[in-house]
């Protein structure tokens, strides 16, 4: 038992040290600042600038969060405050199935539905020429993927708000919507922020579905209709060649390290945020 437990407990440190150890060479040669802010990515010439990937990841993630947050929030309020209780029983399996669908299947769906939709309808309609494989396509697929995750947390949070608090607001003569707006949302705000933060961390590391629809062009995107590249996609696409180019493996492990650090950082932040707020 103890061995298992310590294995698990030290896993994050183990992950961190192995990845750090592997990317150490690169860090020593180039320095963190240059790796993160340099635009030029030419592994064969020994130039490793992660900026396009980092920006690509940030665009895709933020856009995905922007799409899914309002949808989740509205749905969570709907099923916990307005809809009949029976409806929540329908919603639970829906969330489970959406959460269970594998990333590649989301990718397939993105290629089948979202990419053509953007290249054939949305792009032309806005007068923009696009392949369809783009930041927007990735963000959209990603937003669907994180909906079950965020929605689930939000529903749980709304459920924990005591009935009596809602009664107190209503007994003052507020309408149901006023109660939702002024009391429920305010009380749930830290939880809502945490849900979004967890979703953000999850979206940032998502690999396969994004890889399949984002276009994979090493370039700092200028519009959401441009193709882009993300950090996880960089690792997944290039692991095959790592041993043929010097320092390439170091570079990919550095990308993995970045993902690990961002994920741990966001999750840590949100946990502390919740636990601090709970003391009130």
């Amino acid at each position, binding site marked *: 038992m103890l061995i298992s437990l310590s294995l698990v407990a030290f*896993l994050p440190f183990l992950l961190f040290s192995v990845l750090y150890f592997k990317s150490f060479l690169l860090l020593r040669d180039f320095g963190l600042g240059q790796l993160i802010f340099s635009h030029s990515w030419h592994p064969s010439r020994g130039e490793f600038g992660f900026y396009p990937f980092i920006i690509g990841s940030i665009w895709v993630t933020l856009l995905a969060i922007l799409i899914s947050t309002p949808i989740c929030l*509205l749905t969570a309020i709907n099923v916990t405050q307005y809809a009949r209780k029976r409806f929540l029983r329908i919603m639970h399996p829906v969330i489970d199935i959406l959460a269970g669908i594998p990333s590649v*299947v989301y990718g397939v*769906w993105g290629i089948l539905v979202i990419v053509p939709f953007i290249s054939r309808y949305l792009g032309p309609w806005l007068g923009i020429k696009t392949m369809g494989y783009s930041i927007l396509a990735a963000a959209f697929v990603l937003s669907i993927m994180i909906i079950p995750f965020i*929605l689930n947390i939000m529903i749980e949070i709304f459920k924990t708000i005591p009935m009596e608090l809602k009664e107190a607001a209503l007994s003052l003569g507020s309408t149901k*919507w006023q109660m939702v707006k002024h009391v429920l949302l305010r009380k749930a705000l830290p939880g809502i922020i945490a849900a979004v933060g967890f979703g953000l961390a999850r979206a*940032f590391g998502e690999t396969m579905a994004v890889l399949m629809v984002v276009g994979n062009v090493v370039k700092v995107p200028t519009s959401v209709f441009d193709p882009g590249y993300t950090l996880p996609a960089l690792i997944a696409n290039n692991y095959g060649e790592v041993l043929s180019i010097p320092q390439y493996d170091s570079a990919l492990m550095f990308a993995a390290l970045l993902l690990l650090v961002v994920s741990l950082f966001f*999750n840590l932040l949100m*946990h502390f945020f919740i636990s601090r707020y709970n003391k009130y």
Partner: protein
Amino acid sequence: MKRRLKVEEAFFRVMMNLSTAFILLILGVIIYSVFEKGMKAISWEMLTSIPSGGYYYGKGGGILNAIVGSMTLAFGATILAFLIGLPVALYINVFLHGKKKLVNLIRFILDLIWGIPSIVYGAFGFTLMVLVGLQTSLLAGIITVTLFILPIMIRSMDEILRTVPDGLMEATYSLGSNKSELAFKIFTRQSVSGIITAVLLSFGRAIGDAASVLFTAGYTDNLPNSLMEPVATLPLSIFFQLSSPVPEVQERAYASALVLTVIILIVSLFSRGLGKRYHKTKINF
């Protein structure tokens, strides 16, 4: 004033219903498009044979290698994660019972690990492999996927075990059974269906994830016959076939996607069913 409020509430109620409908619709569209495309491409031959010569140019053969490979890998990883995870979950709930701070810290670390993207595990597994001189293989795949599903396994079992009421523990103590016996008998019996749900959940994760096996399990046209050889997996077969320029091969990716989706649906249906029964007994308790 009141009128403006009513308009506002009506507006938001419409938006709420639209959002909810959107989620239901999207699920429908995903399931529909996977089934519609997949049903056209799927055949008995695809499910029962391995790729034959020229498969990747659109000739005969099937994805049996990936189906069996995925199953083997996912089973292996789930069993391994279960063997490591159950003791941990029990340890937290029995031996550390009452040490709230420590338990919370462990839960917190587990939640942190849960949040780490699977590609990071893939990269980590790959590095370890290179370090110890292991090739891409079933074994490396199983180890990586085990690490990846471990937090899911432990935390879901932990959540189940937490609900075992304190009164039950005290009752058993007073009968004089020692702690290990208590742990394995009472706890597991009380929460068998919940633990099965946790196992199914982990299995679903294990079979669906591509990023962690991409570097570690490799890919092969053969059925798995050794721990030290590469193994094909469904997510990767979808990914590789879809990136082929040959339309027939792309079609097969849809068939593979259908197979994977059906497996996932069955797994989640099963755990739903068990979950329901579990909740019923919980109310009676």
